[in-house]
């Protein structure tokens, strides 16, 4: 070991044996496995391996010298890297491959093999040197990474697919919906319209898209009130709801359109766009009008013969002989009651239909409120034999409202009070002025209403279950009352305990 003497490394020309040993030690110190095969002998046997090779493969030197390297692949022979190796050997070229190799005990390891030929002066390949590195850890990490990547890609694919699907889904909704849809940018230019819009307005996309909304057609949307509402949508997020546009449109003539407009919000995107939905309600409105007309005529026609019947029954009452039997009197009295009920049903039918279509018209005029209540009470009293109605209090007010409707409310409350207190004989009506309201209360001491039902009795067609059995009706009287009071800006409510009677009150604002 001359070359390492005196602490300095001097490559000696004389001591080749010592040099060889130095090289061998150096090779053994390497962490890479090194083998040398002899290409001049059949089947390229291993003629050298270093210590690292033994460590990586678990084979001892003596077990492998003279063998071809292929034992490292055990039965795993179908790897395409073998082809690369074979070609490199045949061509006498160097190559790098990563292969699955197996330790002596069968454990898989990834071998990064760098193979290079050693040639003689004539260029014949005499030996191959193989440098091996166990890259199992790196390979595992790579594989994990790949797995993650695959997973990620799969996820992205799924997400893309679901996005595409939801886009298709939205597109099919937009295409199917029987409303005309328009998307506007903040400058009120039309970005897009759906097919239904094109069909409804008999226009082309070219003359619609990228145009200012207000300049479409013959200026049908150029309405100052609509403009103001639309301009408020983006800054305030206040939608435009149920805006009616009656207009003589180009191509389609006079139509009534119902407009709804909202700011578009889609997962935080598109907040600067406006979606307008337009519905042609021309036919619907016409049908509603015809229905109202029909009910008006029907109720008028039904009431006419009823007037005659009622008149004759009253005549019968007058002609009633002193000695008429109780049975006969009862029959007459009941006939009277049912005529009243039939009349009420006819009126209710007409009213509820009008309320449903929003056509309840108020004819407001000043009238003497106290007188109106007194007359209503008197009217009901005149046909009520079973109960006494006691009216107390006064307002002294000339109220401005729809007298006939408010009379209807009082009639309804009074007849309910009578109807639902069959065992009692007195109904109290109290009239007062409270702050800037007039208040009317109707109190009975009858069967009362459970708390649960109190919330529902002002709903349309609601009837208390057991009541339906004993007192048939349509269940719309109180609904109509509450609509009438609401339309006057007032409130109606009930206070009641089951079995202890009910107190229905309403207030109407004076201003």
């Amino acid at each position, binding site marked *: 070991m001359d070359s390492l003497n005196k602490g300095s490394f001097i490559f000696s020309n004389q001591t080749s044996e010592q040099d060889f040993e130095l090289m061998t030690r150096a090779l053994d110190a390497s962490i890479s496995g090194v083998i040398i095969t002899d290409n001049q002998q059949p089947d390229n046997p291993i003629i050298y391996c270093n210590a690292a090779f033994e460590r990586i493969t678990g084979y001892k030197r003596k077990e492998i010298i003279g063998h071809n390297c292929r034992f490292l692949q055990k039965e795993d022979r179908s790897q395409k890297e073998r082809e690369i190796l074979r070609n490199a050997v045949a061509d006498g070229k160097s190559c790098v491959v990563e292969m699955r190799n197996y330790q002596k005990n069968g454990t898989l390891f990834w071998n990064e093999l760098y193979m290079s030929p050693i040639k003689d002066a004539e260029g014949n390949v005499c030996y191959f040197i193989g440098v091996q590195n166990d890259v199992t850890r790196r390979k595992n990490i790579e594989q994990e990474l790949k797995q993650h990547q695959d997973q990620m890609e799969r996820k992205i694919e799924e997400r893309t697919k679901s996005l595409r699907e939801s886009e298709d889904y939205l597109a099919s909704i937009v295409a199917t919906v029987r409303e005309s849809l328009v998307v506007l940018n903040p400058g009120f230019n039309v970005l897009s319209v759906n097919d239904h819009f094109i069909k409804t307005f008999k226009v082309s996309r070219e003359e619609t898209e990228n145009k200012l909304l207000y300049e479409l057609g013959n200026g049908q949307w150029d309405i100052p009130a609509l403009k103001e509402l639309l301009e408020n949508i983006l800054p305030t997020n206040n939608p435009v709801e149920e805006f009616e546009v009656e207009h003589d449109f180009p191509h389609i003539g006079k139509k009534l359109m119902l407009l709804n407009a909202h700011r578009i919000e889609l997962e935080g995107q598109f907040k600067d766009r406006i979606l307008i939905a337009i519905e042609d309600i021309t036919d619907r409105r016409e049908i509603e009008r015809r229905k109202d007309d029909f009910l*008006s005529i029907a*109720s*008028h026609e039904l*009431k*006419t*013969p*009823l*007037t*005659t*019947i*009622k*008149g*004759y029954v*009253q*005549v019968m009452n*007058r002609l009633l002989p002193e000695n008429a039997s109780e049975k006969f009197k009862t029959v007459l009295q009941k006939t009277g009651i049912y*005529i009243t009920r039939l*009349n009420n049903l006819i*009126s209710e039918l*007409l*009213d509820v239909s009008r309320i449903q279509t929003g056509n309840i018209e108020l*004819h407001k005029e000043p009238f003497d409120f106290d007188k109106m209540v007194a007359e209503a009470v008197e*009217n009901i009293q*005149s*046909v009520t034999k079973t109960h006494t109605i006691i009216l107390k209090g006064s307002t002294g007010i000339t109220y401005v409202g729809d*007298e*006939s409707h408010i009379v209807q409310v009082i009639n309804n409350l009074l007849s309910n009070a009578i109807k639902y207190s069959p065992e009692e004989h007195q109904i109290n009506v109290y009239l007062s002025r409270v702050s800037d309201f007039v208040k009317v209360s109707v109190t009975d001491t009858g069967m009362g209403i459970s708390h649960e039902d109190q919330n529902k009795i002002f709903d349309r067609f609601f009837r208390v279950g057991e009541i339906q059995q004993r007192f048939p009706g349509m269940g719309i009287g109180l609904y109509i009352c509450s609509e009438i009071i609401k339309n006057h800006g007032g409130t109606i409510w009930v206070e009641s305990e089951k079995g202890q009677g009910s107190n229905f009150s309403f207030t109407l604002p004076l201003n």
Partner: protein
Amino acid sequence: MSKKILICDDDEGILDMLEFVLEEEGFDIIPEKNSLNIYNVIREQHPDLLLLDLWMPVLSGDQVLKTLRKNPDTATLPVIVISASTEGSLIAKASGANDYISKPFDMDQLVTKIQTLI
């Protein structure tokens, strides 16, 4: 001498019934089914009061009433409108009726209204 009431309604049932009831009350009744005849009947028979239906074919009650009010001879003739229409009371008031009663009405109430006017 008993008071004369002209009743104009296109429904015969109501005409008959009202005639029957109001005669019982001691009134003289002139029933008229056709509103077009009203002016002639008034001119010839000078009723003290007119009970007038609104919804009649050809010439409606409010048209009749407006014409009557324009004519000095009939401008002050007491008229009670009887109608089954929900807007009846408003139309009656707007056309110049003295009073209004909705169908179906209470007979006593009608009689009271008549007595108030004549």
